[in-house]
């Protein structure tokens, strides 16, 4: 077992621990903090796969901005005892678990049976430069649409959260 495998196992453990915490904590504030742990694990995977820019974006946007947004929203809509805020539906939890297990089993079997013929790319490729050329080259329209989408979403979120004026 080399260093790369060890890093994969540790990061996978952190990520899955965080993900399981999201669905198993009964206090939703703890679930949100567990979600941050999972995001940080995924950011570690990005760093491991030579996607440093995406790893930093993941830490800033997901572990920073989105988690703070979620925790603020939780504080605003807390309506009962905090320890009862993240309970599962008594019937749907079994259906959900069954469907999730079926999904993981089928897709996992398909992945095990597939043969992929790729070789890992060279670790010293200039990924950030390539990404910049793509974003401002062939995919510039997607980039601009993403900018407009963010603007519209921010304006829409402010209007929705502020509420309409009573006539």
């Amino acid at each position: 077992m080399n260093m790369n495998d060890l890093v994969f196992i540790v990061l996978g453990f952190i990520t899955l621990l965080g993900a399981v915490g999201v669905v198993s904590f009964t206090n939703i504030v703890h679930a949100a903090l567990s979600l941050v742990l999972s995001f940080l694990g995924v950011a570690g995977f990005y760093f491991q796969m030579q996607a440093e820019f995406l790893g930093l974006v993941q830490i800033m946007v997901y572990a920073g901005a989105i988690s703070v947004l979620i925790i603020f929203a939780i504080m605003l809509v807390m309506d009962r005892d905090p320890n009862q805020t993240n309970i599962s539906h008594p019937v749907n939890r079994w259906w959900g678990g069954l469907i999730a297990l079926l999904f993981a089993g089928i897709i996992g079997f398909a992945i095990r049976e597939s043969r992929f013929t790729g070789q890992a790319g060279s670790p010293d490729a200039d990924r950030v430069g390539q990404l910049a050329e793509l974003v401002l080259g062939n995919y510039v329209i997607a980039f601009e649409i993403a900018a407009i989408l963010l603007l519209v979403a921010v304006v829409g979120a402010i209007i929705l959260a502020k509420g309409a004026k009573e006539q």
Partner: protein
Amino acid sequence: MIGFQHYLLLATVLFAVGIYGVLSKRNAVAVLMSVELMLNSVNLNFVAINRYLVTDHAVGQLFALIVIVVAAAEVAVGLALIISIFRQRKSVNLNDFNLLKW
């Protein structure tokens, strides 16, 4: 030896945890958090495919970046909707949001 398939398997497990959360949770914020888990696992797949199968350019990372942007917009609007509906119904339980059901 850790390879491409292990990343795909890990992303599958992450996605399955997200499916379980979406289907079983009653709190609307918890459902949104589970959706974020699923989006993260898809991003992990994009980056792994870019690393192991399509290695000559960074288009997989670009897709992951755009997914992150859309996820940020989705979370902002989703949480605003939850806050807005909480003001009317005094609840975040999805079972109480049956106004449009007939």
